[in-house]
């Protein structure tokens, strides 16, 4: 009786838990691997990093592709169809994304670290194939949506960024051996802008308009201000990418300014949701959201300083660090620590009986340890980069590694508690028979 009412099979939109969870589990493993690789590479290599092959670039891609993109894909394939109320695609296609992307990232990282061109090319090809299938699934889903513009505008920009960043990424890999690019550094910067602010950033901000109100029980975010925010962010992204790719500092600066305006509008649009939320006491995951939301504009300001003439050493390294580890890794691990028990709880009543309580599934101590270690890593490495001191960077890398291990323990405990619940539910169901 109502416009756009779609009574599609709701159950079809809930994937088997194993599908999103394999992405999450792999993201957790790559998270540990990334910090381990960076810690082993040591502070000298990390501080002086300006691009180029080696273990720092490998560690960086274990975070960006292995942790951030992997989580975005796992969350996307499950949350997008439930949020948009339209099917994403067949389950086999979601599994295919994983089986292309996960080994692709592993091969690519090893190929960058050693370095071995063959492994790089094979890994990049598999990763891009996985991203292409994912992008196709998301685009297909978004084409059917006309009633969730807040999410869809950001998601469309993420898909467009994905296509461009994958293309540039492939060119960069080929350039390592063939030297086809006139300015490798400029294209690498454009690739980083598209990856950090385009694909991951837009996806994170878009999903946040649905997930944050849902997790804090706040009212829906109004569409008009999010639309304005998306417009400014999109223009900023385009200008920032062009400015970076063609080494045009003023264009890049204009892009950053537009991005900051877009972010301001976004935060203002989210404010009523925060203010009128039902959960007055925010859950532990939100502490990392605060960290991320502080470091996102800080990173943009550092980028602005770079375009206005600040030296690349240390500000370029600091910008990259704030973008990847400060904003994105903080935000993604925040949402991951809420999504994992949430999805487990959603599936936990599939055998009948009571669903597992979120509060029971999510242990607090490991996320507290992760928060402390992750924050320490951000502060120590940030200070070390700015001051040119090796010892805080070294300590920070160890703190990051310890935090990632704590996060791994959290993920393992969520899964173990879910399994225990399901075993008990199966036993109760058998007794009932």
């Amino acid at each position, binding site marked *: 009786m*109502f416009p756009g*009412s*779609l009574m599609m099979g709701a159950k079809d939109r809930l994937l088997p838990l194993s599908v999103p969870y394999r992405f999450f589990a792999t993201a957790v493993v790559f998270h540990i691997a990334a910090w381990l690789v960076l810690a082993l590479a040591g502070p000298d290599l990390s501080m002086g990093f300006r691009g180029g092959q080696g273990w720092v670039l490998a560690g960086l891609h274990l975070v960006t592709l292995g942790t951030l993109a992997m989580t975005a894909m796992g969350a996307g394939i499950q949350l997008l169809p*439930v949020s948009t109320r339209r099917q994403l695609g067949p389950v086999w296609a979601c599994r295919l994304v994983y089986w292309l992307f996960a080994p692709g990232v592993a091969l690519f990282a090893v190929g960058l670290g050693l370095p071995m061109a063959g492994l790089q090319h094979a890994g990049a090809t598999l990763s891009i194939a996985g991203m292409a299938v994912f992008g196709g699934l998301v685009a297909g889903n978004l084409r059917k949506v006309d009633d969730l513009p807040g999410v869809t505008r950001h998601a469309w920009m993420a898909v467009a960024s994905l296509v461009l960043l994958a293309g540039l990424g492939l060119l960069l890999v080929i350039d390592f051996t063939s030297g086809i690019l006139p300015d490798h550094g400029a294209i690498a910067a454009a690739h980083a802008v598209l990856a950090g602010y385009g694909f991951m950033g837009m996806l994170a901000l878009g999903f946040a308009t*649905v997930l944050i109100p849902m997790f804090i029980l706040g009212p829906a975010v109004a569409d008009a201000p999010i639309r304005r925010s998306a417009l400014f962010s999109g223009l900023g992204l385009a200008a920032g990418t062009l400015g970076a790719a063609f080494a045009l500092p003023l264009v890049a600066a204009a892009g950053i300014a537009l991005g900051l305006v877009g972010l301001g509008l976004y935060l203002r649009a989210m404010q009523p949701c925060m203010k009128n939320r039902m959960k007055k006491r925010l859950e532990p995951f939100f502490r990392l959201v605060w960290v991320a939301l502080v470091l996102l504009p800080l990173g943009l300001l550092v980028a602005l300083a770079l375009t206005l003439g600040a030296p690349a050493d240390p500000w370029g390294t600091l910008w990259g660090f704030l973008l990847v580890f400060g904003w994105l890794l903080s935000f993604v691990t925040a949402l991951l620590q809420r999504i994992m028990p949430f999805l487990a*709880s959603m599936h936990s009543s599939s055998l009948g009986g009571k669903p*597992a309580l979120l509060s029971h599934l999510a242990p607090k101590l490991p996320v507290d340890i992760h928060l402390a270690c992750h924050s320490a890593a951000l502060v120590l490495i940030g200070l070390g980069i700015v001051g040119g001191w090796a010892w805080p960077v070294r300590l920070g890398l160890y703190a990051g590694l310890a935090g990632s291990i704590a996060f791994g323990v959290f993920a393992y405990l969520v899964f173990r508690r879910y399994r225990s619940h399901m075993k008990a539910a199966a036993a109760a169901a058998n007794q009932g028979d």
Partner: protein
Amino acid sequence: MAENEPVNVNRETGGPPEWLTLALECQPLDVRGLLAEGIDPFAAVMEAAAPIEFGGSLVIDAPFNPSPLRRILAGRGFSSYGRKLSEGHWRVFFHLDGGADWEKGADVEVMPEGAMTWREEDGIHIDVRKLTPPNPMLSIIRLIEGIEGDETVVVHHEREPHFLAPELAERGWRIARTSTEVVNVRLWLERAR
């Protein structure tokens, strides 16, 4: 219209509005047949509402309380008043009077997020259809947090709300059963034993 006067009336809170006598003169548009065939009758209802002039009325027969339709028509200036005539048969009277304060004195209460609630024999009903996510979940949680006894809550939704179950469990509630009809997924919520 005397033969159309409901016999087995289950009317909710508040008395009928003054304009009801005018609306009783109208021939009802029965959309139950369309819904039984799986056809969304929204277009037919809008087509019927379009030519109505100020002061005119429209009457809809539906298998459930069409709360989202009432909200949408309220936005177009229609006040409404609903009656449950029998199981699976609601008659809703619409009157084009500007729709100002349309919910005041009506048979339903409207929550801050726009959800409608009313009471029937089987419990408190809440209609969250057409609300922007996560407002359906907010309304439901706001409602159950205000319930002290063992009352059942019947939710009228557009889809199975997967994200709701964990939040309900956290508050000691559960989805006892679900029924799926065209444009009306119903969930019966009870306290978990």
